[in-house]
């Protein structure tokens, strides 16, 4: 009898133990968490959406021309600055600097390029609504490339005539200095603006059209820049396959715990959602102002700028129909939430992209996480953050997880 009871006890204890073991594994991720992970997985990235505003967006010859223009330093006022000066391929197409350095110093941090073909808005404040319109901004910025469109179209004529004409048709003759003076552009520079005003309407239009086509070629190249698979994606694949032991070979316990916090208590996926880990929208997260820089109102100004932009989706230079321009037509143009709101960048490869925030305010990921944990008041407008009250150990785990978002080379 005694033996019988003992055996039953051992049997019950063992089966309960096995059940406990199984349930510990099964309960690692809830159904909702698995679905959230799936939505962040790179395999959920839809096919590259068409860019109806750029009919050359998927043209291989435009990609090839764009790649050359992207790295050509002749397209600047000092022959030293190209797109690749700040968007360095080996550094995920950014420069690692607090503020971008062109022919001068800008007021903002260089943004990465990977995956921006999925974004309706470009720049930290979304003042451009296509990759081609974005590419044309720095070319005429006094502190970036520092040149003017009149200078650039002459360079196209001199160095890229055949490639240009094979794509876009006959190039006008820009060699007459009296008709096409340099510098000339509708920008904030007295000489360039005066020269531009002195040109005929038709000549200005001819110059701008070639300038726009340059942007469309550069955009065709930029569309090909995409993030790759990371360890996080491999982990999600293992979880989706229900292979917990494979998942645990991919992630350390800290990385796994960090992911759990990322999906839950830390509220990260409010803004960093979808397979690119960004909602492509604008948020005031109370990032401190930089003392030496002019006041930055972020999206509040960017929204007005994109509405007025000569190259926006509804402009005559866009190949889109108004039906294609829903983002612009139904854009939120006013409201307190736009004040000092900046674009949520993709978190893919984030660990390689210090310093952080729109003016490189934070030197390390530790500083970023500490900021989100403490949720200070915004210098202007209203911060969307809530105090998280996470411990240092928890923040370390989130950091460990963020490092798993780096593309496997």
């Amino acid at each position, binding site marked *: 009898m005694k033996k019988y009871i003992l055996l039953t*006890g051992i049997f019950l204890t063992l089966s309960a133990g096995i059940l406990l073991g199984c349930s510990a594994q099964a309960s690692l991720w809830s159904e909702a968490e698995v*679905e*959230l992970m799936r939505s962040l997985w790179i395999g959920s990235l839809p096919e590259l959406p068409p860019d109806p505003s750029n009919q050359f967006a998927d043209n291989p010859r435009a990609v090839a021309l764009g790649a050359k223009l992207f790295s050509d330093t002749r397209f600047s006022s000092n022959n030293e600055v190209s797109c690749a000066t700040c968007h360095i391929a080996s550094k995920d197409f950014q420069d690692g600097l607090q503020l971008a350095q062109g022919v001068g110093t800008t007021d903002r941090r260089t943004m990465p390029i990977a995956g921006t073909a999925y974004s309706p808005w470009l720049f930290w404040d979304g003042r451009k609504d296509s990759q081609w319109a974005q590419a044309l901004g720095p070319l005429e910025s006094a502190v970036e490339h520092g040149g003017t469109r009149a200078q650039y179209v002459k360079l196209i004529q001199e160095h890229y005539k055949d490639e240009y004409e094979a794509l876009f048709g006959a190039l006008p003759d820009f060699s007459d200095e009296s008709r096409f003076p340099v510098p000339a552009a509708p920008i904030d520079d007295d000489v360039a603006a005066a020269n531009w005003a002195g040109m005929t309407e038709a000549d200005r239009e001819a110059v701008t059209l070639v300038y726009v086509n340059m942007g469309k070629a550069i955009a065709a190249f930029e569309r090909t820049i995409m993030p790759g698979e990371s360890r996080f994606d491999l982990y999600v694949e293992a979880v989706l396959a229900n292979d917990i032991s494979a998942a645990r070979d991919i992630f350390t316990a800290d990385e796994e715990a960090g992911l759990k916090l990322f999906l*839950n208590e830390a509220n990260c996926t409010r803004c960093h959602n979808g397979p690119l880990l960004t909602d492509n929208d604008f948020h005031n997260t109370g990032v401190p102002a930089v003392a030496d820089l002019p006041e930055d109102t972020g999206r509040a100004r960017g929204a007005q700028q994109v509405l007025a932009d000569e190259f926006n989706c509804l402009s005559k230079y866009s190949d889109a129909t108004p039906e294609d321009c*829903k983002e612009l*037509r139904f854009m*939120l143009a006013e*409201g307190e*939430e736009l004040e000092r709101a900046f674009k949520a960048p993709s978190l893919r490869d984030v660990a390689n992209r210090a310093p952080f925030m729109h003016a490189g305010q934070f030197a390390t990921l530790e500083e970023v996480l500490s900021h989100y944990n403490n949720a200070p008041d915004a210098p202007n407008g209203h911060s*969307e953050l809530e105090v998280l009250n996470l411990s240092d150990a928890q923040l370390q785990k989130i950091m460990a997880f963020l490092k798993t978002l780096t593309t496997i080379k």
Partner: protein
Amino acid sequence: MNSQTKTIVITVVVTLAILFAAFYLLLPVIGPSVMHPIMAEQMHGGGSPGVSASDLDTSAERLTNNGAFKVSFKSELDPIKIGSMHSWILHVETADGQPVKGATIRVDGGMPEHGHGLPTSPQVTQDLGSGNYLVEGLRFQMGGWWEVKFNISADGVEDNVTFNIVLGG
């Protein structure tokens, strides 16, 4: 107590303890079938994905606040997907079921728990007739509880309706 009873008691207690622990740990998996939604929400905590406000009325047909109109919507995207620009068809009837034509409709909304509005500026762009209106420019960029509010004016009557949308992820 003899040693045989002691063994039985210890075995039963240990087994029960382990069973309870296993049940608790399994809750997130078997939870939906055994827990009340509110209990599940408490267990997940406020910041959990897609579980906020699970007791909200999320029906797609509602009476306006003062009962003037019966309003329903049909989303172009079903289910609604986070981050996708899409449109709705809004149907407006009088309380007794007559389609309301020629109404002026304003759209507003946001996330009450986060204190922010809609990320876009949706508008009624077309009166499709028969009480149907095309609402364009809707996009929800995060999971959680969203409100979409319509202010409807027709034949000198103005009333408001709020739809609750709860998105996972």
